[in-house]
């Protein structure tokens, strides 16, 4: 009974992440790569993402603080963040990166600063939600094959 409740909770949590736009189809692609040989593949990739993205966000913050007019440098950092966000299906973070890069192209510092604050918020919220989700999955037990919710 408890086990099936946990499974339901995990499924609901995942569905919310998709319904609220935090995750996109790419997350399902990652789940489909998970199997008995790589049972924790998704969590491992997501962990790697948050490790790298935290570093990139720190670099962007320092660059905005010390040399805010170096838009090409900012653009390079955000390019990496966008690429890795895209690879795990972190849709909101990815979209904010796209917007940030547009502001860089326009050399719009105010836009970059506003966009960066939103990017940090989206990143932090996603991190907290995915940490909760994986914590619940660990309680549920061995990973199941990816299942897309029925429309």
């Amino acid at each position, binding site marked *: 009974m408890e086990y099936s409740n946990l499974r339901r909770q995990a499924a609901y949590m995942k569905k919310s992440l998709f319904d609220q736009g935090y995750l996109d189809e*790419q997350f399902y*692609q*990652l789940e*489909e*790569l998970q199997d008995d040989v*790589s049972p924790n*593949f998704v969590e491992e*990739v997501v962990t*790697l*993402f948050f490790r*790298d993205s935290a570093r990139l966000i720190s670099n962007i913050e320092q660059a905005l603080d010390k040399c805010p007019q170096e838009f090409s440098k900012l653009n*390079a950092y955000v*390019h*990496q963040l*966008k*690429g*890795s966000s*895209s*690879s*795990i299906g972190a849709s909101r973070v990815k979209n904010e990166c796209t917007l940030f890069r547009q502001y860089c192209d326009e050399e719009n510092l105010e836009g970059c600063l506003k966009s960066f604050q939103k990017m940090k918020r989206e990143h932090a919220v996603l991190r907290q939600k995915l940490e909760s989700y994986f914590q619940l999955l660990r309680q549920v037990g061995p990973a199941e094959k990816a299942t897309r919710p029925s429309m």
Partner: protein
Amino acid sequence: MNSMHILLHQPPMCFYRHSSTSILCPPTPLARIWFSLHHDSGRASMGSTRRRVLLVEDVEINRVVVRRLVSELNVMLEEAENGKIAVDFIKQGRTYDLIFMDKEMPVMNGLEATKQLRSLGVTTPIIALSGDCLPCDRDLFIHAGANAFQAKPLSKIELVRILTEYGLSISHA
């Protein structure tokens, strides 16, 4: 048992070290032919069905995902973190059956790397990868010598389609 069977299946009995190359070489002419067929450095040999693919991509997570994607396929994947490393690989004599080339990378971007590879005479199919997929980017890459342009992230279905289209065996490992 015919001579071809013997040729392909006879194991080398013992090796000596070649004085100029330090490569271990089999002693008999037949064993040397067998060795050459199965260990021709940098090339897919007659006895091997594994194709060699080079992924040129700076973002580690993207490489991790593609690595996982190809792990189930009969493909040997090598990775380069930027275009310059890819060009250096080619200059070192490495050969590939297919190259996936990211667009934006530090040190040397995908466009420049593609131009340099073509100027070196590399005819390997090059598939440009980009998260943006703007028509102007696509045109630039094709003009530089890429064979096709593909949106990132690469899905398994798209990977299998590309490998099949360019004649790479995709039987499962």
